[in-house]
Each structure stands twice: as C-alpha cells, then as structure tokens.
C-alpha cells in the first residue's frame, strides 16, 4: 500500500507528465519568502498584526515575508487550511493560532521543530514568560515549538454600570456563580434589563461560560483535575456547574439561540442586559462606540469566585517542520517574543502580553488603556493561570471536539445527567 507521500508524488508525477510545463508547489510560499499563516483578517486583529509585522520589517529588512491570510470564524478557516498543509507535510514557515495540546498531534506526527536553543534561550524568554505559558509551548523531549504572543482573559464578568446602579447591585461583592443568580434576579425585578447577555448559537460561548462557572463554584484545583480527565472523581462539582449554567438560562436574552456573540455584545452595550461573560476581545466591540466608555459605562470584574485565577486564551506563533525558511522563521519568532512585538500587538488587539516585564504605562506610540493595565496587574498577581477547552488550550483536539459535542446537546435539552455522562465518555479517546 503506498504511503500518502508516495501517492501524492506519483499523482504529481503523472499529472506533470500529462500536462507538460504546468506544475504547482502545493501552496508553499512564493520562492524563499517566509510564509506566515494567520487568521487575523479584519478589525483589531488585522491592525495589531500589521503593526507587529511592520516592526519586524524595520528590524529585518532583508527577510522577505508572505502573509497567507485565512479568514473564517474563530480561526476555523485557518485550522482547516493548516490541517491540509500539515497532512501533506508541506507546512508554512509559521502560523499564528492557539498553543497548547492542540499542537500535540503535530508534535506526535514529527511535524514540529525545536526552538529551545535558537529562540527561547537566545532571546532569554525562559526568564520572562510565566510558567503556564511556557508549558503551552513546550512538548516533552521535542522542547519548545512555539512562542506565546497574547493572553486574552476569559473569566470576565463585564457589567453595564447604568443597569447595575439602577438595580442597586454591586457586582464586585458577589462571591460565587450561584450568588450571581440572586443578583440577576434583582436586576430583572428592578430594571427592564436581562440578567445576562449571551449567545448559545455557537457551542463555544456556552462552554466558555460553563468553564468559568466551574472554577467559580469549585475552585482551580477541581478544574485542573477535571481537565486531566478525572470527571467521575469530580461528579458533584461537574453537575453543580452544569446546574448553575442551566439556571442562568432564565436570566439571559430569549433570542440567545438565534443570535451570534457579537449581537449579544450589542445587547449588553445597549443596556438590554446587566452582565456579559466574554473574552477580552469584547472590549474591541465596546471601543467602536464613542458612547460606551470604560469605567463610565462598563466595568469588569472576574466571574465571582475566580479572583485568584486568570483563565485565558493563548495564541502564539509556531515552528513547524519540515521548515522551509529556518533562519528567517527563527528571527521572526525571536521578534514575536520581544517586548516590542508584544507591546505593538497587544496594545491594539486588547489582550495582555505574555511577558512579566512589560511597562504598561509607557508613553510610546503603542500604549495600553486603563482596562488593559488593570488586566496586566491581575495577570501578574494571579495565583493560577489556566485556559479553557472552549478555546483548545487545555485538552487534545479529539477531547475538545467530544466536549463541544456534549455541550451542543446540553444547550438543546439542559439535561444535567446526560451531559455529565457525556463528559465522562468525552475524555475516553
């Protein structure tokens, strides 16, 4: 039986013979350019990437780059294109996406190269990148295969200042996700607004909220144990979090199942709901309105019960193999890890940098707003950093897909026992 490469080679040779003069290179970057695959095709993401890329070009004018943009919701366009490239052992020079166990299948397939010496040690990243983010990029004997770029907090409880003040609720005094139910009850009885603005159309928003509730109800250690696959051992905790999420249903917008997350954010901005749980990227939506400003109109606090945890979504740039442009890619990755790149990118995109030595109140061309400065302080002070299954930072892709499947059913029938049993099976891969 021929291997995949043999099949592709034979097929390619046959076609080349038939169509003399016409040949393709399977999608590789043109000539010797460093090909950078990204999914930041619009909005803050595109501007932030451009700022960082400009900085790189200033520092390394001799390195030719080709930007391969793959638009598509939440990076799915990039993931599909990348899978096909990796499947054909024809990776780009680097790509920007989620780090962590999502990379494990590539590592197992021998498709990731080590940048331990040439990037991490040479640029001194081991000294300044927090341990959790290092773990996201380090894979056993292979070593470091990626450089983290941004960390977007997910366990945020954004609140609409006018609505909570009208209802007389102080969000910072709520101590657990269960207590938040009482607060939402007060809000709905005292104002015309919903307790929470959300979208259940896509599964990730529901799963992300559930993971925050889990940490808030049961603590960081139980959550880590769950992520390791100990579902049955944490049965009571898993079910408690599922029950709280099912109760939240009464307090969110009636059209949650029919709107996407951006529409839910608009509802929150319009005062139709008091609370919103979303990643730090929601701030990008807020800033599009001149009449919805930080502190005056909106504020943020960690999901009740998660003060000591900074649960985030981490993206970075990777070093695949076979590597088409080794030297240029290493220059790029050293630059991505640098203070300058992290400031240029994150000041615009809205997340926090992945280093512990950034001067957030700097007065250069790229400055962080008040919200980002607070987030960065909390990031440095947090006892625990962690991630989510919803954003593929914590478990293998097969498990993440199974867990998403469980929540796609749960958001249809809200059956706690069935969801629990599904989660027990989800880790069995």
């Amino acid at each position, binding site marked *: *039986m021929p*291997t*995949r*490469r043999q*099949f592709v080679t034979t*097929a390619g040779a*046959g*076609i080349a013979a*038939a*169509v003399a003069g016409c040949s393709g290179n399977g999608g590789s970057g043109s000539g010797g350019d460093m090909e950078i695959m990204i999914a930041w095709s619009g909005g803050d993401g595109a501007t932030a990437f451009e700022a960082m890329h400009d900085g790189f070009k200033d520092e390394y004018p001799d390195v030719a780059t080709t930007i391969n943009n793959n638009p598509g*919701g*939440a990076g*799915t366009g990039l*993931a*599909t294109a990348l*899978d096909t490239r*990796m*499947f054909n052992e024809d990776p780009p020079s680097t790509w920007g996406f989620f780090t962590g166990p999502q990379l494990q*299948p*590539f590592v*197992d*397939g*021998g*498709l990731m190269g080590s940048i331990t010496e040439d990037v991490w040690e040479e640029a001194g990243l081991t000294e300044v990148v927090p341990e959790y983010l290092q773990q996201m990029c380090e894979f056993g004997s292979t070593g470091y295969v990626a450089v983290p770029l941004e960390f977007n907090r997910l366990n945020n409880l954004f609140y609409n200042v006018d609505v909570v003040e009208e209802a007389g609720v102080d969000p910072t005094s709520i101590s657990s996700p269960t207590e938040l139910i009482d607060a939402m009850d007060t809000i709905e009885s005292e104002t015309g607004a919903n307790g929470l603005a959300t979208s*259940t*159309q*896509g*599964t*990730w928003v529901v799963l992300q909220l559930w993971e925050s509730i889990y940490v808030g109800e049961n603590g960081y250690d139980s959550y880590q144990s769950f992520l390791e696959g100990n579902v049955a051992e944490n049965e009571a905790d898993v079910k408690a979090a599922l029950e709280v999420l099912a109760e939240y249903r009464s307090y969110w*917008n*009636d*059209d*949650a*199942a*029919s*709107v996407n997350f951006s529409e839910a954010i608009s509802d929150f901005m319009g005062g139709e709901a008091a609370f919103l749980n979303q990643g730090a990227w929601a701030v990008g939506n807020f800033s599009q309105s001149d009449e919805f400003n930080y502190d005056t109109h909106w504020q943020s606090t960690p999901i009740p019960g998660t003060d000591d945890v900074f649960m985030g979504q981490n993206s970075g740039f990777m070093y695949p193999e076979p590597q088409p442009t080794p030297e240029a890619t290493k220059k790029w990755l050293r630059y991505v890890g640098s203070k300058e790149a992290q400031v240029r990118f994150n000041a615009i995109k809205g997340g926090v940098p992945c280093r512990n030595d950034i001067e957030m109140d700097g007065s250069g061309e790229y400055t962080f707003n008040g919200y980002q400065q607070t987030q960065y302080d909390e990031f440095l002070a947090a006892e625990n950093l962690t991630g989510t299954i919803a954003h593929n930072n914590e478990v293998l*892709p*097969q498990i*993440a*897909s*199974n867990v*998403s*499947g469980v*929540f*796609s*059913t749960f*958001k*249809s*029938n809200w059956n706690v026992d069935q969801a629990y049993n599904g989660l027990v099976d989800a880790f069995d891969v």
Partner: protein
Amino acid sequence: MDETNEVSTNDRTTLTGLLGPITRRFRRNEFLQSLPFLLVPTLLLGVFVYGSILWNVVLSLTDFRGFGNPDYSSLDVELYQQMLNDPTFITAAKNTVLLMGGFTAVCLIVGLGLAILIDREIRFEGSLRTVYLLPMSLSFVVTSIFWAWMFNPSNGVVNYLLRTAGLDFLANDWFGDPATQLWAIMIALVWQFSGLAMIIYLAGLRKIPTEQYEAAQLDGAPVWIRYLKVIVPQLKTSTFSAIVILLLFSLKAFDFIYVLYGVNPGPGADILPVMMYREAFDANNWAYGSSIAVVLLLATFAAIVPYLYYQHKKDLL
C-alpha cells in the same frame, strides 16, 4: 557497400509493408485517434476524483487519526461497526434522511404549483418567474443569516406575523429549539430552491402539446382534473430530474448549518456532512471522517443510480 545498401532497402520495404496496414488501421480507428486528447482529462479525473475516492475508502478502513502516516497493514470495517453504535451518527443520519426527503418533497410540490400558476399565461409572467428563481442565486451563507433574522424569536418577521395574526402560541425560537430546528432549516431551503423545481416543471409543461389541453377541455374536464390526469403524468422526466438535483442540493446544506451553528449544531440540526467535517477537521479523526464520507457517497449513489437507470431505459443516455 552495395550489398549493405541492398539489404537495408529490402528491410525498409518489408517494414513499410508491415506498418502500412497498422497505420491505415490507426487512421481509421477513431478511438485510437482520440486517445491523445482523452488522455489528459482521463488522467486528471482518474487521479483527482476516482483515485481520491478510492484512497478515501481505504483510509476509512484504517484507524488513522492525528498526523503522521496511516497504518495500512490492518484494514477492517471496525469504524463502520462503531458508526452503527454511535448515537451521534444515528441522529445525524436520521436528520440527513429527513432533510433530504422532506426538502425534496415540499420543493417538488411548491415548484409544481408555481409552475402551473405561471403556465396559465398570467400577467407579469416573466417577472414572477425571475422573482421565484432569484433566491437560488444567493449563497447559503447569505440565506442562513437572512433567515436567522427572519426566525429571530424576539424581533423576527415570522414571529411578528404570527403574533399579529393572534397565533402567539405558534411563535417559537425556530432556529434555537431542537424540536423545530430542522423544520426551520427545511423551510429556508424550500424558499431558496422551489424556484428551481418551478423552472424544471415549467420546461416540462411547455413541452406538452396544447392539443392535449384542448382535447381535455373539450371533453368538459375541470381544470384540476385536466392537470391531474393529463398533464402531471407527463411530467415524470421533469420530476426525476428535479428530484436528483434537489437531493444533491440537500446534501450540500452543510454551508447553511455551518454558518448558523458552527461544527457542533447539536442533535436537532446535525447532519452527516457537518459530522464528517467535525470528525476530520475539528477532532482530526481522519479515518472516521472518511468512513462518514463513504456513507455520504453511497447516499449520493442511491440518489443518482435510479435516475441513470431510468435514463438508460428510456435510451436518453
């Protein structure tokens, strides 16, 4: 020297004598002559279509997941057995069959109705034909977002009309409630493709000689009897063509569902094409994704083979 020349001349004569009939045969054989032209498309089709299908079938017999090379040493049908015990697959398969059947049937009925109405030489016939056909030119991406607004439970047109008509009890979260998701998707798809069925039927209607209408009319048959007994039975070919095209469109509902719900629509709206994509590109279970692809291929055959057989029997191929 002379001797050598003589020999070679003799050889040439013999060779020409031998090659003569072959060359003549080649010149006369159209198949052989067309080979250089057929070779390129045959090779392209063979490798990229049939080669890939074959490879996909072989891949479905492995247990390949993640990256690296598949292990072809032990091929079995384990994943097909797993499929039969996988509740997600059963649900997706049921939904797929329901969507294919329901969508095709309703499209045919609506399309036939529209075609008959337009065929009765009404005013603005051309404009109406365009109006009904226009939705087909839109992509699923546009229509899914458009229908998400129409079906919005709070401020969508559908619920607004129902409430205005005093039918509040019928107002629902159409795309959100798992009990109505598939039906709501079906309504949207029927809206988009019934115009196509209409055009196919209209072409069929126009082919029926007017004498037959007139004869039935002279016999005093009412309009609906004329259509039911005289016209509709003659639309068998149109119906067959429409069924095949609509069945294939229903298998392509992937885009519509993916835009609305992403890779995990949940049990109410999951169909096999979405499940295939999810298993392959979300979970990297390539072999399982391939086996679902094989099932879909068989479903496509099931839709097309009866049509081809019918065409063959009618000597239309």
